[in-house]
């Protein structure tokens, strides 16, 4: 009886946005008379950071500091339509809608600034710190605040914009499945290191090492939060979770967290992550979305590592100690598949 170390990997891609498209998002952006902006949406922040991602996209597009932008969501009386927060569509779809709205608002702001400075709007640029100046002549400048005051009280202009993003719905061919599912994909490869106890069937995660490609990382810290948390969920899916442990039997349903088994703080492991950014041609600043795909490579990588450790293939999720132990017994004992790659 012994504990066996194993290592496995998996690589995946993931479609961004609702399959087939047809899932619009709208956004409104407007300035108050002091040049402070509000982005109005009906998109939902599930904790993934929808509000912050759209805030940074709006600030970047407007050319103003992040502190001058807040996002207001979700009130059906004021927020324009959005399909919903699912299908890894927030950054890509809502982000694009916010960009369109912010560009329109920026256009009005630059026109108003041009009128105040008596120059052509095309000759102006923002400095990202709350000022607008003539290109190449930083001293011929006006603050966004003064522009907004002028627009509101002298020029009678609304510094505001409307945005929508829609990928038109694709058809699906009944005979061949021909379709346009999505416009871009995120990618990942993950290595799982673990230990299998051949006496109990228990699997202990030791380490995860991964590379995720998710388009432009709009906010690197929020990317990290998604990837770390998502991989834990993947590990939980792989080894622990189901309300129907003997599917398709519906018995043994859990009633609370004592009965619905999930990993606790002592069960998670270090995760060493590399992020690659290949911008999506039609994403906001190239953004795709890490939200869903981060969990997916963990499940097969864990299953493959268990095979590497003890030589059994568990093809049914979740990979509970019972399944591992039964498989080891059926095989007549653990059969380690040789030293894990790179761990000779």
């Amino acid at each position, binding site marked *: 009886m012994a504990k066996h170390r194993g290592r496995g*990997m998996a690589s995946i891609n993931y479609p961004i946005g609702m399959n087939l498209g047809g899932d619009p998002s709208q956004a409104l952006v407007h300035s108050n008379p002091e040049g402070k902006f509000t982005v109005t949406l009906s998109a939902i922040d599930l*904790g993934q950071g929808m509000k912050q991602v759209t805030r940074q996209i709006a600030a970047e597009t407007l050319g103003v500091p992040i502190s001058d932008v807040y996002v207001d969501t979700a009130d059906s009386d004021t927020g324009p339509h959005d399909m919903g927060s*699912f299908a890894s569509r927030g950054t890509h779809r809502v982000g694009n809608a916010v960009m369109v709205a912010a560009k329109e608002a920026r256009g009005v702001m630059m026109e108003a600034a041009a009128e105040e400075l008596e120059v052509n709007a095309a000759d102006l640029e923002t400095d990202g710190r709350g000022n607008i100046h003539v290109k190449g002549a930083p001293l011929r400048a006006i603050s966004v605040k003064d522009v907004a005051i002028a627009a509101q009280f002298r020029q009678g202009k609304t510094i505001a914009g409307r945005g929508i993003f829609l*990928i038109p719905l694709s058809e699906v061919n009944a005979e061949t499945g*021909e379709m346009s599912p999505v416009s871009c994909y995120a990618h990942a490869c993950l290595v799982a290191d673990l230990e299998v106890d051949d006496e109990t069937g228990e699997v202990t995660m030791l380490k995860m090492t991964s590379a995720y490609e998710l388009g432009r990382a709009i906010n690197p810290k929020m990317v990290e939060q998604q990837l770390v948390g998502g991989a834990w969920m993947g590990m939980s899916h792989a080894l622990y979770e189901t309300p129907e442990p003997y599917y398709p039997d519906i018995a043994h349903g859990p009633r609370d967290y004592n009965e619905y088994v999930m990993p606790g703080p002592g069960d998670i492991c270090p995760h060493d992550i590399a992020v690659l950014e290949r911008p999506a041609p039609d994403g906001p600043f190239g953004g795709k979305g890490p939200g869903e795909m981060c969990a997916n490579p963990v499940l*097969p990588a864990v299953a493959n590592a268990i095979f590497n450790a003890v030589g059994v*293939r568990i093809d*049914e999720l979740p990979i509970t100690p019972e399944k591992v132990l039964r498989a080891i017994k059926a095989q007549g004992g653990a059969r380690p598949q040789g030293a894990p790659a790179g761990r000779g």
Partner: protein
Amino acid sequence: MLEFRKEYFKDERDDHLNEVGQPRQRQDMLGHVTGRTRYFDDHAFEGLLHLKVLRSPHPHARLRSIDVSAAERSAGVKRVILAADVPVNKNTLLSLIGFGKDDEPLLAVDKVRYKGEPIVAVVAESEAAAYAALAKIRVNCEPLPAVLDVEEAIKPGAPVVNETYPANTFEYHEKYNHQKLRFGDVERAFASADFVLEERYQMSPIEHAPTETNGSIAAPETNDRFVVHTCTQALFFSLGTAAKLLDLPSNRLHFIGGTVGGGFGGKVDSLTEPLSILGAMLTGRPVRYVLGREEEMLYGCPRGAERHYIKDGVMRDGRVVARKVTSYFDAGAYTRLSSYGAVKCIAHLPGPYTIPNVHGDCYCVFTNRTPATAMRGFGITGVDFALEVQMDKLAHKVGMDPMEFRILNAYRDGDMKAHRREAHNCALIECVQVAAEKAGWPIRDEFRRMNSLTGGGGERAGIPATATDEVGRIGTGRPASTTPPRAPAMPIPSTPRVPQPVVAQPRMAPAPRPVMPTPPPPPPTAPLPREQTKPVAPGPQHGATRFSSVFGTRRR
């Protein structure tokens, strides 16, 4: 530990932006960490009532009679709500965008189709009073045989779960009991492959397990409208669903949400809003309906179970030449979103690899269990598990390093995908290389030098001659096995590209030229995705029934 590998794809980015790419603190962070963020249940209303539902104790039963007289007299009860009180008591979630037939009541009528299905709702002064009243309801029901396994459910003679779909399968294109994917000729490729491996994979349901359970509070406003505080993941989706079930103009509903205590896909189905609002309509008082933890876990719609059969043909040198996948999505008793997930699964095949022959059949099957719904990775998580374990087995079979095996088969820019669109913006190879490097997993130089930008396209961009079949036509009986016999071949028009050669086997005859005209450009609504800007040979056009072509079933 997280590092950015900026050297990859650096020519495709401008890394000098002011706000994008900066690790700014979230605008809602302080509220979250100090416990002051307001969620739907943090809204206090004077005179708040509580709604609870009586759920079916059986997975399948006929309802003979329901006696609520004692419950109506029970202390604190303000209203008992029956199916007949629901203005439009039949819906399917995706009807909002025109997909599928209405197949699910808000409160059960005549029959219950899963254990836990709501039958009666009680609105009372407290949750305890509501529970006490529920215990006094007498339901006379006749248990019926239940079917719980997807492959059992599609056998002839299986109990009919949902009469809207009498064969226990969702109907695609008003024609087939599954969604097909056909690309090349897998049978021919299997015949000449060095190895063929066929395996079965299974994923059990998974609970979203959010900290905050599904719930909502609805209150009459003074202007003949209702305000609804909700944790929905899709504000207008839930508003539209409620408006339809309650037969209300959408502007009489004022939905407020946006901050959710964990969703993961489990808060799209609008489980509570319609009953909260109906309770407020019938009592004139604010009504709160929140699922308890047990309800959330057992009846709050999980990630659905999936079963996948994968048959692959692989050559000794590691090239996968054919992949055939038969998948069953367990929808539970009602469609919800499973019909969509199955099409997403078909679009995903054969995974991020360029395989010249691909054959997919994906079934959305009804069983007598809690309706499944979306969850993080919907349509993909289960099949990715199956595909990647299968890839590991294949690498083992041909004696190849699993990392190198992935790189060899990875899709690259310019390759044709099985759904007949050209790949671009690929980055699988680079992810494998970086993960291998970080993990100290040695791969050979030639595999370290490969990349997603080169080596694709050319012959890999062709669409092969493809035979189609009529297996699974609606009305011709249920499929008897997972490997249905091939029907008479019917060539499908292909693009005028070089036909995709099937590796290590004789070339096929050149495909005929397309017979369909180039489609008109889509309406100028938004930046077009690159895949759609490519000239493609379209399938048959459905004209005015454009939406219906997606799942093949118009709203009835």
